[in-house]
């Protein structure tokens, strides 16, 4: 096997040093009764060429193998990835290192993630961003835990029913065993979180609102902050489409205390939903409550600038059961990917790409309305929107996927049963006017 370098002579010499007669003897301390009798029932190793063939066959069994058109977002977005991003991130000095416990030989990771933290605070208008989390859903659950732990008088958290349904499920999973509850804020007829309903809620430690929300609509985050302030509770903002903040007012300027977001749009492939990138940010006041790693700037013994992991006293390896979270490995390499993407598109690029996303979505919405879809909400949106489909669309949609590899929106009924025949569409910079015209023609 090409990954195992030992020759027979090596093994003999090494065994001689240990005083053992055979490789099996290395396991003498394991009682025989505990050992497996049969060899692993896994076939012989494949050559690289046989593996290629096998893997291409599997990959081809996904529709994504072809050059397909994706009008679905819902937490995973199709965006252009400049070739320098995968090229640079595949440098193995980044990929094959571990957590930068030895800062003297990890300055690449450390400065890179420090720059990531900085660019995320810029994007979100927050004071502090962590070195990353697994995904938006788990980051949001951690934010809810921070709010609940800080407020000893409340065991409930208010969550908009327009937060991504999967994120709400994760929150439920995390909160329930700790004895906390999630109460959902209903939505208005305009596809927005019902601010008045939040006003009436008592005994809550915080409120979480996603913007753009799961139906694509832009929420008035400042208004939620105002209510949170009157209740003296924490305001948590979340988002699944990070490019929206190339254009929209950021959560920090709307007063968010904590922000949980998905960073997949920042140069990371959809990859069947993972690994993505959990973004987690807070105000200065939240610094010691934040979960996971933080990189800080410092000096070395010669007085030169350098970077280290810092504030480790919040973390599990020091605090153990009293840690702010159990997270250890995060999504570091994807944070670095996002940093490279943000440095590549820069201040000019992110604005233009974000604006194009919005322009395309407006165009697609108009085109589909002309093709017989009904508008549902009149709220402003970024790159996703909801339409009610004409009769017979479900069958047309399935045909479009299997025959032309076009994914025309996502059925909302499984998530919101009252939204039967309603579809969530997404248009990003990767779809052309022609693609959208073709889609409108096909569904007419």
């Amino acid at each position, binding site marked *: 096997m090409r990954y195992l370098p030992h020759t027979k002579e090596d093994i003999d010499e090494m065994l001689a040093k240990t005083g053992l007669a055979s490789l099996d003897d290395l396991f003498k301390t394991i009682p025989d009764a505990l050992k497996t009798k049969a060899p*692993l029932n896994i076939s*012989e190793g*494949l050559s690289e060429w046989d593996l290629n063939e096998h893997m291409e066959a599997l990959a081809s069994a996904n529709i994504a193998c072809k050059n397909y058109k994706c009008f679905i977002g819902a937490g995973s977005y199709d965006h252009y990835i400049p070739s320098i991003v995968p090229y640079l991130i595949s440098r193995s000095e980044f990929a094959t290192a571990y957590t930068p416990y030895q800062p003297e030989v990890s300055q690449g990771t450390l400065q*890179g993630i420090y720059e990531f933290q900085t660019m995320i605070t810029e994007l979100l208008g927050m004071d502090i961003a962590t070195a990353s989390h697994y995904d938006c859903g788990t980051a949001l659950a951690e934010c809810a835990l921070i709010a609940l732990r800080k407020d000893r008088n409340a065991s409930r958290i208010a969550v908009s029913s327009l937060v991504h349904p999967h994120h709400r499920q994760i929150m439920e999973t995390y909160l329930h*065993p700790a004895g906390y509850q999630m109460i959902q804020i209903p939505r208005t007829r305009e596809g927005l979180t019902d601010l008045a309903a939040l006003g009436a809620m008592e005994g809550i430690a915080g409120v979480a609102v996603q913007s753009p929300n799961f139906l694509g609509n832009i929420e008035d985050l400042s208004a939620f902050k105002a209510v949170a302030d009157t209740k003296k509770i924490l305001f948590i903002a979340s988002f699944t489409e990070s490019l929206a903040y190339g*254009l929209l007012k950021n959560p920090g300027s709307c007063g968010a205390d904590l922000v949980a977001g998905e960073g997949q749009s920042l140069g990371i492939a959809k990859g*069947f939903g993972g690994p993505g990138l959990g973004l987690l940010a807070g105000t200065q006041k939240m610094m010691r409550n934040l979960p996971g790693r933080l990189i800080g700037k410092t000096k070395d013994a010669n007085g030169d600038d350098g970077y280290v992991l810092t504030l480790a006293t919040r973390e*599990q390896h020091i605090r153990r059961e009293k840690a702010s979270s159990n997270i250890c490995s995060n999504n570091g390499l994807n944070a670095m990917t996002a940093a490279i993407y943000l440095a590549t598109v820069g201040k000019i690029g992110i604005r233009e790409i974000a604006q194009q996303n919005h322009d395309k979505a407006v165009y697609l919405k108009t085109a589909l309305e002309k093709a017989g879809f009904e508008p549902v909400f009149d709220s402003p949106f970024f790159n996703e929107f909801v339409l009610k489909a004409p009769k017979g669309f479900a069958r047309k949609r399935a045909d479009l996927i299997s025959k032309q590899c076009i994914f025309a929106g996502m059925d909302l009924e499984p998530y919101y049963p009252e939204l039967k025949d309603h579809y969530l569409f997404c248009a990003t910079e990767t779809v052309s006017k022609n693609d959208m015209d073709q889609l409108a023609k096909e569904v007419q």
Partner: protein
Amino acid sequence: MNKQPGTRGLIFNEPQLWDKSRKGRCAVSLPIADVERCQLDASLVGESPELPQLSELDVVRHYTRLSQWNFGVDSGMYPLGSCTMKYNPKTNEVQAARQGFAGAHPLAGDEFSQGALKLMYDLEHLLGEITGYPAVTLQPAAGAHGELAGMLIIHAYHAKKGKQRSKIIIPDTAHGTNPASASLCGYESINIKSGEKGILEPAAVAAVMDEDTAGIMITNPNTLGLFEENIKEICQIVHAKGGLVYGDGANMNAIMGIVKPGHLGIDVLHLNLHKTFSTPHGGGGPGSGPVGVSEDLIPFLPIPRIEKDLTRYRFVTECPDTIGRIHTFYGHFGIMVRAYSYILSMGGRGLHRASQLAVLNANYIKESLKETLNLPYDRPCMHECVFNDKHQQVFHVTTMDMAKRLLDYGFHPPTVYFPLVVDAAFMVEPTETESKENIDQFIDAVKAIVREARETPELLKKAPLLTKVTRLDEVGAARKPCLRG
């Protein structure tokens, strides 16, 4: 002595991104707008974020230079104990980058995602075969996330039985993530000490196990690199009081094809695909932490599960006793592709061989260095061995000093000051992918450093000398945190 790999070499200074920024530069050619511009209401629009403005070469040079300041497995031996820094095969990267995987949308629908579903289904079964469990979930995003999933399963099991318990037993050799995961489920950690041989004594477990204790969290092989010989008896003690046994499988690399944890009485086990199954550690993730469970615990696994009907695969969410969802989609699919490729490349015999050689390498280091460094537990070890600085203390040289000096010799240091059960631990895990020559070079380097500790201890205090930066002021960093530029 062989010539050591560490040497001087030219690397480059590189400022922070924003110091290179010049107004008007952009490293992406923007797509030409082919639809009309539509302005959102001005009240919704913010300022463009202050990101750096760079040319393409600026970006390429920045990250190339940064990468050169890093040490990875591809640079040299990285014997970081408990982390299994084995070689990350390059073909795995090629497989994960295939358009059919990398481009797949998670909500495309089962019918149009059969390749991804089949891969996940098969990987669950391969991991089940390696560990001895009838069911595995791939959803947890990292080892600690797998631990959390495991503890949630134990919590849900006791809730279903009708009586929740309040405590969990955690030995002193545990990873720090263990107690942190347990406390997320509201369990109080009951710490117990390992015995004189560095392994758990059944009596110590029996003394604290009661009917208010949810179970025990055991790492086997443990973080001293020793196999918990009494594991079966311990499982029986815990089971007799209605508790469950959680296994931390971070050290599975020692026992593939030799021991199946599922057959020992361990009810729940997490694995780290980024340790045992060769996926890159990425400077701190993304990893993947699958969890295997015994028959009784299958109903509690996170959703969605994957089922196979004749030849078609589908996601299933109707599982009334599930702990729920723990990842937005299905976990770190891209990491699963890599691990699956690794298992297929190695084959069953190759995996068994990998464990044998990982243990051979560790025992060879232990025997070669036990006269040089103090070895608190002189017993046959598994995949790692733990020394400390006891013999160097008279020269006022610490484990940290020796670790830093190893950098100058061109080696990544072992894990230091962990496990806590050994004072100033120096924990070496070579992995099976290091050759005898590399290991001999490492042994020579440690011996040379121990000599230096005796003869020129002040040199070690200043180490490392060849790295881009010298020792960093971590206390200052924590006292006045500067977390953004």
